[in-house]
């Protein structure tokens, strides 16, 4: 019975405190959540941590779910916001601890280099500005532009524009590589 219930009903039940509904939602969506976390961060360890953050916070967040959007859209929005918050906090942290920050920046640079060597994807994603990257992360998750717009809180047109911008970036990158 529970298995055939749609996400939205489950979401509403979970918002009302139904633990079983919450559990089956998690079970259903965990992998996609993690996948998106990876697409947003590009590093598995980061994605694991981000997913953990989200799992820890989800129980109180879900109480605000009103069924106004499809559950997956709502959940994706939570993931995108969590990724933003995480980035923001890390930026503040880097600013606050200078010595550590420099070291961290160097370390990240070294990591990036290693990854570059084996992974064109990494370079491509890293070369994009943050907003474009996030948009692309969602588009590559097989969502249409309207859905992506709903998740990001922007219009469908903006999504399309961003995607074409991202494509321009990628084309330029390819040209640079081949020359």
């Amino acid at each position, binding site marked *: 019975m529970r298995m055939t219930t749609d996400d939205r*009903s489950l979401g*509403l*039940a979970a918002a*009302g*405190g*139904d*633990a079983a509904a*919450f*559990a089956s939602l*998690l079970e259903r969506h*965990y*992998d996609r959540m993690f*996948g998106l976390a*990876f*697409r947003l961060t590009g590093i*598995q360890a980061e*994605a*694991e941590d981000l997913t*953990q*953050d989200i*799992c*820890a*916070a*989800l*129980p*109180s*967040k879900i*109480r*605000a779910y*009103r069924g106004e959007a499809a559950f997956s*859209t*709502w959940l994706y*929005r*939570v993931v995108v*916001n969590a990724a933003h*918050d995480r980035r923001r*906090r*890390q930026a503040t*942290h880097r600013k*606050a*601890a*200078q*010595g*550590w920050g*420099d*070291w961290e920046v160097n370390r990240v640079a070294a990591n990036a280099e290693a990854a570059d060597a084996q*992974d*064109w*994807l990494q370079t*491509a994603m890293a070369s994009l500005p943050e907003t474009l990257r996030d948009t*692309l992360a969602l588009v*590559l998750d097989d969502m249409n532009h309207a*859905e992506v717009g*709903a998740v990001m*809180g922007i219009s469908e047109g903006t999504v399309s524009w961003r*995607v074409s911008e991202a*494509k321009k970036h*990628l*084309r330029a990158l*390819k040209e640079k590589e081949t020359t």
Partner: protein
Amino acid sequence: MTDDLDDLRKAMKAATPAPDASAKANNIALAQKNFADLQGSGAVARPKSNRIWTGVKAMFSTMTTRGGLVASTALIAIGFVALNPQLLEFGAQPEAVTLPASVDPEPLEMAAEDRFTGAVVLEEAAPAGTLAAPQATSKRLQRTAESYDWPETRIYPQPAPRPSIVLPDADALTPGPVIEGDTEAFPEAAATPLKITAEEPVSTFSIDVDTTSYAVVRNSLMNGQLPPREAVRVEEMVNYFPYAYPAPVGDAPFQPTVTAAETPWNPGTQLVHIGLQGAEVTERPPLNLVFLIDTSGSMQAANKLPLLKQSFRLMLSQLRPEDEVSIVTYAGSAGQVLEPTPAGERSVILAALDRLEAGGGTAGQAGLQQAYDVAKGMSAEGEVSRVILATDGDFNVGLSDPDALKDFIADKRDSGTYLSVLGFGRGNLDDATMQALAQNGNGQAAYIDTLSEAQKVLVDQLTGALFPIVDDVKVQVEFNPARIAEYRLIGYETRALRREDFNNDRVDAGEIGAGHTVTAIYEVTPVGSDAVLSDPLRYGDAVAGDPEAEIGFLKLRYKAPGEDESALIETVLPEVSELGSEAQFAVAIAGFAQLLRDESAVLDWDYADAIALANGAKGDDPFGYRAEAVSLMRLAQSLSE
């Protein structure tokens, strides 16, 4: 869509890893636990008015600084208004949920809702942005890895961060409850696994006199949080306490005492308790101390540089006129701020201490080099030289090349200069680096969170901390497989040695200071006991060993300070008897530490048992350390419920 995106999509599909199965299980469990906690015990929604007040109460109890209290009062005022609408919505919600009929996409108005009510309230209530408290249900969330919804919590997860409370630093000189974000790094070590005697009859380790772990655990508990598991090192908890083991007689530098007894937490096993008591020194050689002080910007907090100054002031009174003190600081650049000065000239030293100010980045390696150079210049025949590094862990030395740093320290160790590491403050305490430094530099790591801890480390136990009486103490126990089926060394995970290292005098190990005690405990399972966990092999040979012989044999190696060759002490492990009250207290602490680590070995035991055992063995306790331990156990008991 066009080709270039399809390429990317394919690459992305290929690159996206499957979620880690165990992380997934943990995360789902975490989410469900948080969910359940949020709902109260039942799975069905019900009015939650109580919860809000419990939460506020819990918040109060975790805040003790004046600033914290002022801020939390403001929180209640605003928090109540902000939480109330939620109350109305959720409290009044019927248990049967009405479902909307259709599944049409609607425009989203998520932005505002998407923040936690609690977090928004906090941001408004504390505009300074320094106060971030857990949301109303904080108490139950404390063991979780929750960290997402607290603004200004700095996250740099090494181990999974546990929640932290950030209080303003403004309330100077209350070095208690300031915990910052999570750049803390603890060495990762799983509990030493159970060994099967027939397969591995010999166990070898180096002694450890660090006490960091106990102080870190205390700091966490005092702030109303269970400590991170990896911060709990059983041997450091046990060795934090002085024990009155039988003293050595004659010229012996230390005296081992071995007892075996029933295990309090498992009726089927026994404990082998090994206590080493170092000799007291009456005549001590002159001492050359180089304080290497981290004055980087992060040391500004009240529980760091100011506490450090107070601590060193306390320590100065313990020094003798013939001792010499020098101060080297490291921040943006390293520099000597006090030439070697006889300890008798207190005012000169105190003035130099007072001039220290925090600011700038951290150039640890240069500082360390200079400190060792100064120490070398000060040392003379028959004197003891020691570098005392005081840092909050923003010690970025050799991060470009950690091995070079270890080699550097190990090299200086051979020159006869000792190194002690004192950790201050929480938040970016790099426990792992501190451990590595102290272990490689013939030294001791301690964590100082309060002035009374400074009193313990730098005044009460100063002689032991600064005057090693034996170096490189290694312990090796061989169990008789005909008597003991399985054994387990409790703690000492980061101190394990290879069997062949025992006789290799070039392999470094821990020191015993004057009057120090060191304790190690094995849990052993006799052959034939119900508690034997492993089945006998079907095709293996019959177990060798003599069932008539003793249960095992203990060997100790140590070097006199400055010597290259080790001496050997050997003794037979005794048969089961009763633990003395000193050993019993050590066992209570070992059990407590294992409870904090959630270890399966103590599943049938709980904090109440540990408290009862410790209470029965408090002994003289002239400094009140043991009484404090019992109150920490009680705190942990409440927090874990």
